[in-house]
């Protein structure tokens, strides 16, 4: 993916990696070079090693999964703990709910986020409401459902989608999307250990693109917390997953073409619950907001952020909130570059907000 290797958000050295205050607990850890799929693998191995009740399952996970995220785990932890399921997403999600309902840890893989919809009923009507409907007699906090998401350049309708907004509309679920290997390991372990069902979406274009020095020790990163990954004073930009690298390029363009302007970039990380405080604090500082995501604009999560920010920061806003999103069409193969919220589109909207 363009810009990832050069990104200032990628931690290439141990020092850079461990400078993050969120990693204070492992500040003496060794680090090793991992890409994002290896960081997933590392988190899963840690989960299996530290929780004897944890199991991993899904289509083709036994040989390592189509993106190699579960490679070597069946050999290391046993086929009873890492296993193939039949090809049924509703079965995988429902099975995971059952595993979790009796106190075990279920880490399920859906092969592509585009294929999660047969499991929608299980996740929305069952997993999300399990605790509430039973008066907290039961819960499926042990459930985590991983799925690769977002554009990859040639995925077309069914290997490109970002369905976070559907799940964001579901009280009881948590939704998390990491941006890098370090983030992935910490957020995935947090998701697995969280006492609520979590939908964990992995931007698949980053699986092999981003490489970081990832702490070897066991650590988690907080759910529900955004991270300001670049500070600025004139405009707040919010994104998640691989879109952050697009936004980084757009910001570089904007700051170059508009000397003196500085732009703040926030990685939302958790879509649900989302960090209203960090975002509104930033907008109260900058007075301007742009949100970008690949999913279609109408009903996308940008709408929710825009509304909330408008409620919290109305008197401080100096320009209309900008949304730069996928158009309201299915994700199209040959038109991908015209469809996505590209750097130039994001730049254009930044300029519009700043010159309003």
């Amino acid at each position, binding site marked *: 993916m363009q810009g990832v290797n050069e990104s200032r958000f990628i931690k290439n050295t141990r020092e850079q990696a461990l400078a993050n205050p969120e990693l204070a607990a492992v500040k003496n850890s060794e680090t090793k070079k991992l890409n994002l799929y290896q960081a997933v693998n590392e988190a899963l191995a840690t989960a299996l090693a530290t929780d004897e009740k944890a199991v991993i399952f899904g289509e083709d996970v036994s040989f390592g999964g189509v993106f190699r995220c579960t490679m070597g785990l069946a050999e290391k932890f046993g086929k009873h703990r890492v296993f*193939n399921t039949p090809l049924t997403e509703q079965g995988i999600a429902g099975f995971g709910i059952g595993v979790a309902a009796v106190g075990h840890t279920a880490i399920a893989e859906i092969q592509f986020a585009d294929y999660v919809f047969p499991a929608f009923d299980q996740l929305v009507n069952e997993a999300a409401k399990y605790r509430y409907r039973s008066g907290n007699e039961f819960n499926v906090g042990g459930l985590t459902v991983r799925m690769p998401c977002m554009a990859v350049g040639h995925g077309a309708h069914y290997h490109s989608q970002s369905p976070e907004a559907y799940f964001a509309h579901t009280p009881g679920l948590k939704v998390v999307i990491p941006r890098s290997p370090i983030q992935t390991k910490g957020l995935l372990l947090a998701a697995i250990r969280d006492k609520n069902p979590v939908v964990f979406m992995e931007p698949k274009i980053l699986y092999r693109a981003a490489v970081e020095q990832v702490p070897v020790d066991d650590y988690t990163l907080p759910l529900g917390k955004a991270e300001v990954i670049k500070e600025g004073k004139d405009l707040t930009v919010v994104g998640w997953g691989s879109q952050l690298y697009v936004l980084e390029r757009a910001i570089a363009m904007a700051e170059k073409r508009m000397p003196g302007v500085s732009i703040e970039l926030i990685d939302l990380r958790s879509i649900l619950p989302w960090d209203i405080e960090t975002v509104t604090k930033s907008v109260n500082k900058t007075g301007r907001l742009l949100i970008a995501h690949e999913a279609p604009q109408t009903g996308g999560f940008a709408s929710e952020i825009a509304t909330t920010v408008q409620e919290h920061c109305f008197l401080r806003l100096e320009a209309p909130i900008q949304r730069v999103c996928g*158009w309201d069409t299915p994700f199209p193969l040959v038109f991908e570059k*015209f469809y996505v919220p590209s750097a130039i589109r994001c730049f254009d909207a930044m300029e519009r907000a700043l010159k309003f």
Partner: protein
Amino acid sequence: MGSHGHFRARGRGRLGAVSSVYTEKLEFLTNYPAIPTYRVLDVEGAVIDESQDPKLDKATLARMYECMITLNTMDTILYDAQRQGRISFYMTSYGEEASHMGAAAALTNDDVIYGQYREAGVLMYRGFTLEEFMNQCYSNERDYGKGRQMPVHYGTAKFNFQTISSPLGTQLPHAAGSAYALKLEGKKACAVCFFGEGAASEGDFHAALNIAATTESPVIFICRNNGYAISTPAKEQYRGDGIASRGHGYGMDTIRVDGNDALAMYNAVKEARRIAVEESRPVLIEAMTYRVGHHSTSDDSSAYRSKQEVADWQKNHSPITRFRKYLEARGLWNEEQEQALRKDVRKRVLKAFSAAEKLKKPPVEDLFNDVYDEMPPHLAEQKAELVRLMKKYPEHYDASDYAASKSM
């Protein structure tokens, strides 16, 4: 069942299983007999029971064989094209050619086809040209799908072949519904739905078979049991007697067929079509075959199965070789014809290939068309916004590979 009246009287009140009799024996059913696999040809292409030879005319047999060779050749060239980065994706049908052509030859073009994604041969047999295949795989301006879907997602109303969708199993209930509609119209036609043994694990499979059975819809469900769902072998996919055993559960006429035997496929589908159309009942066919190729160009199957296993299938169970031997034994084919056909097919495939490669991508305006029958205002506004961006930043929106848009 004998003594119907007696048993029915005793069975009253059990509305859910009206044919069941009471028993005082505590017995769980555990050993079910395996469903046999119907075949016409042995592995050497010899007819085992002459009464089962459909004795197809020479032209039909030739078309079946030519399509097998053409499909096989097209697969080789397009697979390599993907490897060279000339198309973005491809899926071959290696090893499953007989199930395509045997089924296709037994159907009429009025029968509505729902494919999964590995049934290009059925479409080819119906008359979809090499140019049409290549245009889709190249996502060029002549692709009927307007470049929106990945390669191999063919579809055309012209041949009653519904456009392929990547999610697995979703097409099964569609086929039941289309079949019901055909029945309402009084058409002498059925719907035919192809899917793999992996897709049969999806909930939609169960939903489809049950709704087809209860609505008495004229649909033929054809499972291509090729042994693998990506890396997952059939033995990890289910524990029953394949997919055919499920037909019984839905009260459906069912047969298991040697899917590498084109004539067995032909006979089974022909009779299934008669049952569906004449008697208005759904039918389940399980075609036992083997996926010789990788799942797709995104897959390397050597990570989960031995190369020897694949080689054994290729050597001993090639459906093409078997059919060729049948034709040769009847004096309908020889080495000379084989060489000539292969040479001609290769030439035609390469010609279509380079023609498709030269065409432009569909016009950018097609990004916004067909979301609805008419473009709603919010989408028109987004389209106008893209037009503005493309004009303002032409260096970021190079559309020179795309055909000219009329409206933008």
